[in-house]
């Protein structure tokens, strides 16, 4: 156990935290945009999975990782289009739309995957490598943790301020937040609510899909059924725990990733407890943390409520 406090291990714990959190961060920021626009999209898992599959497909077919990134983004946006059509146009209950999408995505990706490999050996690809940022990566501790990561990791960290700026400092962000708080306020100014919801959900889902794609391209070399393994749910949890604020969501995702990284290292250094307990640790600790927190809810007032002129 005392091993845990050696420098190499501390660096490893922190670096692992960053690796675990960054794909989640893309997806969480995407879902933040979606939900701030009033659409309670429960289909994060399915969107991430589809993004991951699209990335795998394109990476193995073309060998180009950046094309694969694009594929994940496009796949995510298409999933967003489905969600937007169901929620903004058909006004299906948001939960049904999202959960249905999860089922659909689980089935579709597996089906396509099997049709793609057709019994032959599964093609694999060689994913993103770490990019050392000159000078910065040489700083002790911080260097290897923060400045020796995948290229997309840096992008993910930049996405937080960008989303913050988009939401709070841009013209479009004000309208987007208005969708979540009171879409009628836009409607009475003669602006189309559903067009803006389509845009927001597609943009958000594109980022969510990118999260899945990054998970694939950054940390794997192949697709497997149920590849995202429940991360979509963690994203939704982080959004609620982060109180629908970019910074809050960042903190929630970081805290979760840190706990997960800690649990990983505890198992590896040989803590004498059942490994299931260590695996459960991030979830237990998250509940414990949330029990102690209280704040004015930042949930958008009209989140999850299909909009229609009365």
């Amino acid at each position: 156990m005392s091993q845990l406090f050696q420098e190499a291990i501390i660096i490893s714990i922190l670096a692992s935290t960053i690796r675990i959190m960054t794909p989640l961060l893309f997806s969480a920021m995407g879902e933040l945009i979606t939900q701030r626009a009033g659409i309670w999209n429960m289909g994060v898992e399915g969107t991430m999975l589809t993004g991951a599959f699209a990335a795998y497909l394109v990476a193995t077919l073309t060998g180009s990782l950046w094309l694969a990134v694009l594929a994940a983004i496009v796949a995510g946006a298409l999933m967003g289009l489905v969600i937007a059509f169901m929620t903004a146009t058909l006004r299906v209950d948001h939960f049904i739309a999202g959960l249905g999408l999860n089922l659909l995505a689980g089935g579709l990706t597996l089906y396509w995957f099997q049709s793609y490999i057709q019994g032959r050996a599964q093609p694999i690809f060689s994913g993103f490598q770490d990019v050392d940022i000159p000078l910065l990566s040489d700083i002790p501790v911080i260097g290897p943790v923060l400045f020796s990561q995948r290229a997309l990791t840096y992008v993910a960290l930049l996405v937080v301020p960008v989303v913050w700026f988009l939401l709070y400092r841009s013209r479009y962000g004000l309208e987007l937040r208005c969708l979540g708080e009171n879409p009628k306020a836009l409607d009475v100014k003669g602006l189309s609510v559903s067009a803006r919801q389509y845009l927001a959900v597609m943009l958000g889902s594109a980022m969510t899909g990118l999260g899945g794609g990054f998970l694939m391209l950054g940390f794997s070399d192949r697709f497997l059924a149920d590849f995202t393994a429940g991360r979509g749910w963690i994203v939704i949890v982080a959004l609620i725990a982060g109180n629908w604020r970019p910074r809050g969501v960042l903190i929630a995702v970081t805290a979760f990733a840190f706990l997960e990284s800690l649990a990983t290292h505890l198992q590896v250094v040989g803590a004498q407890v059942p490994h299931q307990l260590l695996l459960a640790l991030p979830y237990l600790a998250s509940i414990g943390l949330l029990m102690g927190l209280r704040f004015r809810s930042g949930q958008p007032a009209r989140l999850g409520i299909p909009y229609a002129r009365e």
Partner: protein
Amino acid sequence: MTGSPERAAAADPDKLNIAVILSAGIESAWDGTLIEALERAKVAKPHGLDITWKYTDPLWGDDAGDAMRLFAESGEYDVIWAHSTYSDQVKKLREEFPDILFVVVGSGNEGLGGNQYWVYKRVHEPAYLLGYAAGKLTKSNRLGAVGTFPADDVNDEINAFFAGAKAANPAVERTVAFIESWYDPAKAGEYTKAQIATGADLIFQLTGNFKPCEEAKILCFGNFQDQKSFSPSTVLSSAVAQWDPDVSWIVDEWWAHKAEGKSYQGNTDKRWFAMKDGGSAVVPNADLQANVPAAVQTDLDALKARIMAGSFEVPVDVSDPKAK
């Protein structure tokens, strides 16, 4: 309704049709290696048989039982090879279809006997050899192993790997992790990286993610199938499962029943084929041979020869592997 006795009385059969119930999917090592063995059997034509098969998507529990029933009722299949823990489902079917030979595979099954045969796979002997090599090659004296879920036929490998390492180098320390998920390469990667961070410089990778080893530029070992192609620069060697003796055993049993009229006598206890019988093998990566000093290779060859000759028996230890 099917498998009527008249069929058996006819001339020697020339066709064997097998229904395969998969548990993880063709792309997994566990299922993929079986299909490869069947391909080889098809070419070898034991008893002059024309061997054909059809496999399912991954199925579990009741769904697998339903599929088996459909296969059995169709009357087109002579052998139903259920490639994992399916004896609960076979139990409900085997008396109704006494002519069909049912196969269940691996841990968690019940030895029912009769027309259920229980194929078991142990790859601990190759794992021991890999461990022995690792013990010799390690500089940090620390080795890692990352698995999905612990199980009887997983633990035996991990324990044998470390037993081999210990035999080669008593100073070796071990670190073990289970990720409790079948499908999570990213998570597997984090565990591997964590092991590397604690000083492990050779990894026995049972979860198939070699990326961390590539990044850390260390060597690792593949499991269950030749995994060199996944990472030519890091997979030094793989412990490989070979189902060929199992397939020919089952084909022989079926032949004995079908052509010679013997009754099925399925095993009630695990039966596995040792390395010397072709049940498993070590497949080294020739491109990385330079990493293995000649002296070590000589030792390994000698050890392997003793195992193959039966003069050295690798102990089967299925206890929970823990870091030490």
